């Protein structure tokens, strides 16, 4: 997984979006993606696209997306906020989840609903957070 993230970051560097990354120290215990986003070295959408293309996952833009609040029966809101993920749909036994990162901790969902099949998409972090804010609105 880390290799994929590194490859995606390399893509962004080639596009000239990460000119400052080489001179910035990594913050210990933090995802490199978070460093890039928090320091605004790259925008969420470009990073999500790079991660999606590199990992072979589907990219999904979430602008104006209002998630179905019933899906939070399967994926608790506090887990969604902590892991930067959001449930998008449930068809048969397949729960589709948009993630800001490639490796969210979904053990709480897998333990509680072992028969659910989880499909992970990649979405911009800021759009996930905005969509989560719309849940309670």
């Amino acid at each position, binding site marked *: 997984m880390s290799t994929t993230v590194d490859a995606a970051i390399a893509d962004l560097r080639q*596009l000239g979006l990460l000119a400052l990354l080489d001179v910035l120290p990594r913050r210990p215990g933090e995802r490199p993606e978070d460093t890039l986003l928090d320091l605004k070295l790259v925008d969420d959408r470009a990073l999500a*696209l*790079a991660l999606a293309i590199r990992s072979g996952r*589907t*990219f999904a*833009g979430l*602008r104006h997306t209002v998630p179905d609040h*019933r899906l939070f029966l399967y994926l608790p809101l506090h887990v969604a906020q902590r892991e930067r993920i959001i449930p998008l749909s*449930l068809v048969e036994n397949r729960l589709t989840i948009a993630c800001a990162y490639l490796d969210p901790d979904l053990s709480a969902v897998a333990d509680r609903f072992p028969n659910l099949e989880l499909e992970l998409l990649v979405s911009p972090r800021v759009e996930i957070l905005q969509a989560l804010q719309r849940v309670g609105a």
Partner: protein
Amino acid sequence: MFIGGYRVSDVEVALASLEFSLGQIRLELTSLQRRVNVDEGVIDDQQARLAALRTAESKALAQVALLEEARADSARETAWRIEAAEQEAAAAQAEAQRVRAEHDELLRRLQELTRDLGADDVPERPASDEPESDSQPTPPVVTLLPREAAPEPTAAFETSVELDAGPFDDLASLTAFEQSLAEVPQIAEIYVRSYEEGRATFELQLREPTDVIDAMSSRLPYRLDVTESDARRIVLTVLPLALPA
């Protein structure tokens, strides 16, 4: 002289009587002791059984709680699925009505066009519904029949258009195409809605209803093969044009 006191025989009788009573009491005491021992054993047994029953009760309560939780989960899931299925059915019904209305509208327009051209011998239904006759000449209005393949380019699009384009093998090619789109003056806003297996879906906001395919063809450094288009959606294959030497 009379000396007062007890006679030996009387004392011996009294002592014998006392010893007899004492023996009776001892026997009774022994019997009671045995009964107490037996009762204590029974009490111990009952206490052991009570403890076992309490353990079984707590296990049963835990199982009931688990079953209740599983049942609640299952009920929630079932309710959600029923609701989703109902919504899907309603959407399908609405879509069917829309398609039916569109079909009726197309038939109506076909009849109007037929009337306008004065082709009285054109059937109202598609030709395949009626037997063909060799003696009749082929009507000259065959092109009026609905064509499903080879979509005609739409002259003017709505201001909100979905553009499905590809292939883009990497981030660089996708970004380059997006930047090229941004240079088309008729396009006010571009939003990447999705990307999957090399194809991206863009949401384009146009400044006004216009022929955006024509605008893109003249501006973009790509060859655009349009495979499908209507007023709201365009599907095209993107091929970069070779740069002049």
